[in-house]
C-alpha cells in the first residue's frame, strides 16, 4: 500500500467532495476526470518501477 510522496500529496489535494456537485460544470465532472488521470499515471509509474527492478542474483 506504499505510494510515492507525489501521489500522496495529489490525493490529499484532490477535491473528492466536488464530485458530488457535477451539475455546476454542466454535467462535466472535472475532478473525477482529474482523479482518473492521476490514478492512471500512478499505476503506470508503479508498473514501470516494478519492471525496472533487476532481480537479485545469488
Amino acid at each position, binding site marked *: *500500500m*506504499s*505510494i510515492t510522496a507525489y501521489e*500522496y*500529496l495529489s*490525493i*490529499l*489535494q484532490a477535491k*473528492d467532495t466536488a464530485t458530488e456537485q457535477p451539475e455546476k460544470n454542466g454535467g462535466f465532472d472535472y475532478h473525477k476526470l482529474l482523479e482518473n488521470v492521476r490514478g492512471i499515471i500512478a499505476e503506470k509509474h508503479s508498473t514501470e518501477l516494478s519492471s525496472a527492478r533487476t532481480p537479485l542474483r545469488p
Partner: protein
Amino acid sequence: MGICAIWGAPRAGKTTLAVNLAYGISRGDKTVCLISPVDYSELSALLNVKIPEERSLRAALQGHAGIRQTVFKIDDLFYVLAMPVTANAFDNDCSSEQVKRLLDLARGTFDFVLVDCPSQPNNLIAAWSLNKAGKVLLCMGGHVSCVPWHRANKKALQAVRNKTVYVSSEVAPSLDYTAMYKLLKYTPDIRIPYMREAVLLQNEGRFLFGLSGRKGRKYSKAINQLYEAVNK
C-alpha cells in the same frame, strides 16, 4: 459523524490518542471503527488481542465478505480494522478504488471511523483517509524532533488545514510545550495532558481513558472535549 483522521509527526502520540479516543467514544452509545493502516499488527499488541487474517484490514480491502464480517470486534461498540498478526509487510498491495470503497463502507456502517494515519507521506489508506475525513486531529506535541516534521510536511498540512483540529499531545514530562507551539506557530484547540503511566498501561493492553484519580479524570475530560470537537 463520518471519518476522522489522526495525524502528526512520529512519536507525537497519535496511536495512544486514537486508541483512547475510540475507546472513549465506545463508552457512550456510538459505534466506532478504528482503522490502523500500518503494515504490521500494531493494534494486536496494543489491545492485547490476536487479529486473524479473516477479520483484518487486508480481508476488508479485498471485499470478498461484507465489512461486518471482516471487522474485528473488541466489544459491542468498538471495532478495529488492522493488519493480521500473520501480516507480511511486503505483501500488502491495494488499489485506490479498494481503499475508497472500504472507507465509504465504514462511514456508512459505523457512527465514527477513526484512522490512525502514519507520519510518512507514502501510505495509500492514510492519503484517502485524510482526503475524505470530516476532521483531521493533528497531534502537535510529542518530542522536539517533531518540529521539523511540520516544516517538511507543510504542503500536506496546508491541504487539510480547513478541517484540522490542533491537539496538544503531551508525551514528555519536562518539555516546554508552550515554547514548542510558539515555534510551530500553532495554538492547540485541545490539550491532552501528560500521563506518566501511559507506556506501562499500553504494554498491558489497558486504556488511559476512564482511569481514576485526578490525572485520569483530567485525561478523560480532554478526550471528551476532543469528542465534542470532532462531533461538531
